[in-house]
């Protein structure tokens, strides 16, 4: 069963207070972010729970969760490599970086390693064009990627997991 801690529930009340009275639907995107951080991905159960918290119809949550690309609608690995492939990154060699990660982790974009450690995703422009090629890893950006740097990042992730 999915359930937020009291601390998170209080945080959600604070978020709702940012908007005009009766407009708690505005809290939907922030609350879905919280849910994803807490439960890893957005299952139907999680979305229904969010709907009940914000007094929305479940469909109102589904249509939003499926619209925005940051929400994971299926389980993902412990570490998600979201590598940018748009024009400016392509000009600086993002193709090779994506190929290298595929080879190294033996997965295609959209897949997760069998040990549940890594997911590879290709994403569209993340606003780091001057520091390309790049990827998002959790909350932060990893920029100026090279094969060596990718190796280091993978090692760091593995070390963190142990």
């Amino acid at each position, binding site marked *: 069963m999915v359930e937020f801690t009291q601390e998170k529930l209080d945080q959600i009340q604070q978020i709702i207070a940012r908007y005009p009275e009766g407009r708690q639907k505005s809290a939907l995107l922030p609350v879905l972010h919280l849910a994803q951080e807490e439960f890893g991905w957005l299952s139907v159960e999680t979305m229904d729970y969010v709907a009940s918290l914000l007094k929305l119809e479940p469909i109102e949550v589904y249509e939003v969760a499926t619209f925005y690309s940051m929400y994971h609608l299926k389980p993902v690995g412990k570490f998600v490599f979201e590598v940018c492939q748009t024009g400016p990154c392509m000009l600086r060699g993002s193709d090779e970086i994506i190929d290298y990660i595929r080879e190294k982790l033996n997965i295609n974009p959209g897949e997760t390693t069998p040990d549940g450690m890594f997911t590879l995703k290709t994403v569209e422009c993340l606003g780091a064009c*001057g520091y390309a090629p790049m990827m998002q890893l959790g909350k932060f950006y990893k920029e100026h990627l090279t094969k060596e740097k990718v190796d280091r990042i993978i090692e760091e992730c593995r070390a963190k997991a142990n």
Partner: protein
Amino acid sequence: MGRKLLLEKADVEGIRYFDTYRREGGYRSVEKALKSMTPDEVTEEVKVSGLRGRGGAGFPAGMKWSFLAKPEGVPRHLVVNADESEPGTFKDRYLMEFIPHILIEGIIVSSYALGSNRSYIYIRGEYAWIVDILEQAIQEAKNNGFLGKNILGSGFDCEIFVQRGAGAYICGEETALLESLEGKRGNPRIKPPFPAVKGAWGRPTVVNNVETIASVVPIINDGGAEYAKIGVGRSTGTKLISACGNINKPGVYEIDMTISVEEFIYSDEWCGGISNGKRLKACIPGGSSVPILPANLLLKTAKGEQRIMNYESLSDGGFATGSMLGSGGFIVLDEDQCIVKHTYTLAKFYHHESCGQCSPCREGTIWLDKLLHKLEYGQGTMRDIDLLWDVQKNIEGNTICPLGDAAAWPVAAAIRHFRDEFEWHVTNAQEAQTRNYGLAHYADSIEVTA
């Protein structure tokens, strides 16, 4: 030399924090506006400054403010557009990450002018760590009496809230942004009514880009007339340019809109020339949506005049031979880059980002993506090039919001200026898989000595 107004203190250690920012002269504009000016006087200064919206459209900010409806008893809102998602653009991120207080300061002054007691920053979801930086800056400003109730004893109350998006380019369009702020899908609204009349939660709302709001700070400090003296013609003040692609010094630069494109690319003060001693092939000067230009038309207009980094000069010649300053996302392509492949990555982007509301955009972006995929991977025909032209033509102008145009223009410009390269992908399909077309006739006139 460029005059700096926004990034002047960017290198001061600790400028991210209130104490340093304040010591360096920060928050003076709040004191000046709240203590000695009426809200209308603040708006007037912004009008006089000639400041144009820095998000890409270039609409005069002061005029936008003056459209704000002020019905009795209805709250109004300022919403800052920090959704920065146009490929090639990363200037707002720089400003928020390193000098967050200039944005907070600008919001307070602008909110005062507009009568917004609750203002919002809508930031793209991926900039997650910047949310923390902004929230810390807001807390610091509050602790020092610049936010909250009765700011500086003026009777003006103001709160700022940061709202995170969740990955959708379309939310940079102001009505899609408002839908998203209300917890919905980012589907742009049909206008009118404009946000100035019916915006967030049906209330009068002004949506401005981060850089636009930050620019209000020097405008109030020095006066709109002083600000208008910088630059040339209707391109007043300074502009942040985020430069990327095949250049030696990618990064964010503040320019005063009087320097030439050539100087901007080749001078060590700015981009530092093309990387690896290569030659310039093409450039998208204002974010991925604006027309790409071959080197010869980038550096000089069709009339043979030197092109300048400002609104008017970059659009000289219309779309036939010119482009746009747009968001200031300056993407440089060297001689080794393939125009077909590059255009294909952009088409994929717009296909992914179309919200799906309007058929011409929803279906058209799929076609652009598929046709370019065919051409790039050696399966294209001459008819596909014509079809590509046809499809983009039928998207342009036929959608609720500008995303349709934004998807169509890069394809149109690529075919307009580089048709021979597209044809070569058809006639030499095998060869095109192993090597790029090269510079051909659009080389710059600058000799590389390095």
